[in-house]
Structure formats: structure tokens, C-alpha cells
């Protein structure tokens, strides 16, 4: 779960997250509340598991990207490293695209913040950002099936 650390960012994002209390209780399934840190740790652990394979990485990523939250930088880094372990750079880029898309309306403020936090890992692994690759704009057009 995204944790607001910088005060400036907190002001800018007051609309999305208001204070720690709302951020704290992330999951309320089965009656037990899980804090944001526990949630982060759980998914970090999931992606950092030694023998994880592409199937489980994709399941974890799809689940995360289906939840109503932006994955925290720690989780994004863990996902990237997991993709590195299964030798799938396309997966890593798609994961980044998915996380960028989850920023939603607040992409202008959230996405640079996320990038800043994960850029050491990106450089270390050799994963280009979406902008470096040119995939932030459409590259190819898909012909409609009705025009084939």
C-alpha cells in the first residue's frame, strides 16, 4: 500500500489518502484487519520466494493489479526481481505498465514518486522505464478484426 512519507506529497494527495487511519486498515477479509505494512510485507515475501515460477508471479501481479490500491515501491521492486529470476524482461515491463496504470487520475503526482523510488532497482537490473522504451505512447496500431 502506498505510504505517504514526504509532506509535500501528502498535501498533493490529500484527495486520495487522508491520514494514516484510512491507510492502516487495508484488508478486512475474514474479520481480521491487516495493516498496510503487513500487506506490503506479505506480498514482498511472496515475490521474493526463492523458487517462484512465472505462473505464480503472474497470479500475484494480476491479483495486486486488481485490488483498489497502487502497489508500494517495495512490492514493485520485489516483482521486478522476481521477473529477473525467471528471466522475463517482458513481464517486468508489463508489471511496470500495470503499476503505472493503477495510479489512475493521480498519475502526474504518483508515478514520478514511484519511479524515483524504484529507479535504483531498475538501473541495477537493466530494466528500461516505459518512457525510455517509448511505450508510454502507442507504437503500433492494431487492425480491427472487422477490417481483416
Amino acid at each position, binding site marked *: 500500500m502506498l505510504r505517504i512519507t514526504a509532506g509535500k506529497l501528502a498535501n498533493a494527495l490529500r484527495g486520495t489518502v487522508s491520514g494514516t487511519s484510512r491507510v492502516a486498515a487495508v484488508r478486512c477479509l475474514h474479520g481480521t484487519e491487516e495493516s498496510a505494512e503487513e500487506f506490503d510485507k506479505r506480498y514482498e515475501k511472496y515475490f521474493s520466494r526463492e523458487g517462484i515460477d512465472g505462473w505464480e508471479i503472474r497470479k500475484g501481479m494480476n491479483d495486486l493489479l486488481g485490488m483498489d490500491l497502487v502497489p508500494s515501491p517495495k512490492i514493485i521492486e520485489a516483482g521486478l526481481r522476481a521477473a529477473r529470476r525467471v528471466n522475463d524482461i*517482458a513481464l517486468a515491463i508489463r508489471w511496470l505498465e500495470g503499476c503505472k496504470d493503477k495510479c489512475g487520475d493521480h498519475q502526474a503526482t504518483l508515478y514520478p514518486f514511484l519511479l524515483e523510488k524504484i529507479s535504483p532497482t531498475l538501473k541495477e537490473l*537493466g530494466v528500461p522505464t516505459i518512457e525510455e522504451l517509448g511505450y508510454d505512447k502507442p507504437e503500433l496500431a492494431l487492425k480491427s478484426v472487422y477490417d481483416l
Partner: protein
Amino acid sequence: MVFFRKWQHRPYTHVAAFHSRPLFATSRSGIVTMALRLINHALRRQLAAQLPRNAQVGSVASVHTLDKIGKREVVGYGWNGTASYADRVDYPLPPIRFREPNNEINALRVKEQGDWKKLSPQEIKALYRASFCQTIAEVQAGTGEWKMHLGIGLLFTSAAIWIAILMNLFVYDELPVTFDEEHQKAQLKRMLDLEVNPITGLSSKWDYENNKWKN
């Protein structure tokens, strides 16, 4: 239906004489039932042969789906376990790769196992397009099809306006003489003389004392 037939065509050798059915038919209806029995046996044998011998327990895709995807690698669960490809913004990681493996892609995959910094942007893009059809940006960009719809709509609108102009120029008769200024004034004067709608309508706006419109 199969079980019904099976029950019906069991040879009744243990039953009393007038109920027994001969094993080999001689009458015409008998030949038909025997033919049906043979067809039934043949069908069931064929169906049994089609069943997969060692069906995987808990596999993600049925035999039929795996036939449809060709040689593409199954890599994940996707949205409901079906092995099919779709670019979905709500499930960004599809269950199968987009392209079937070929020599170029396999060579790139070998290179992918090494240091990613050694991959050029073109190679990274090639690897991406091997696994995915469209980028998320492309999915969300839309097709621009609305421009076609707007253009065609405007074409029809302009055609309608042209037709209206030409109809007015060439088809319609002249307006009757009663539409000119003089006649209209006379008609209005007549309506005021008749005190049409005197309470809230036309004549209520006319000042009869001073012979002019009220303010």
C-alpha cells in the same frame, strides 16, 4: 439416451418364450433395431477412443482450448483459467504468450537469461511483442473510429442541407400572395379587431385606447 438403448437391447434369453427377442433379426423392424444397436456400439467405442488417456488433474485448459492456441506457451492463470490471449487493462498479464516460439525469439530468450543491460532496446521490444500484442498505452489509446462516424454523419447532414436548398429552388411552388407584408398586416389587424385571445394572448398586448402595442 445411451443407457436407455442399452437396457432395451439386452437379449431377453432368460424371459419366457413369447417375450423373447431373437439375437439375429429376420423381420424388417428387427433389422432396424439390430442396426441401431451396432451403430450405438460403434459410436460409444469412438467416443471412448477420443477421451484423453491421461487427462491432467487440475490442468488449466481443457483439451479443446489447448488445441486452439497452437504452440504458444501457457504462462499463467489469467482471469478465469482459460488459456486464451487478451489484452485487458484489469488483468494485464495474460495466461499465454502472444506469439509462437520461433528461432529469433528463442535466441533472444537465451540472451535474456544473461545480463539485461546487454539487451538493446530493439531486442527488448521484440521480446515484449513476443509475449504481448498491445502495450497498455495502445489498449487505452483507442482506434479513432469515432472520426469515421462523425465524418459520415456530417456527410449525410450536408447532403440533407443540399437537398433542402435544391428543393426550395427548383421544386416548391411560389408562396401564395397572402404571405406578403401587406396581407400579413391586414390579417393581424383583423385578429385584433376580432379580439383574439384577449386575456393572455395577442389582443391583451394591444392597447385599444391608443391604437398601439402595450409596452
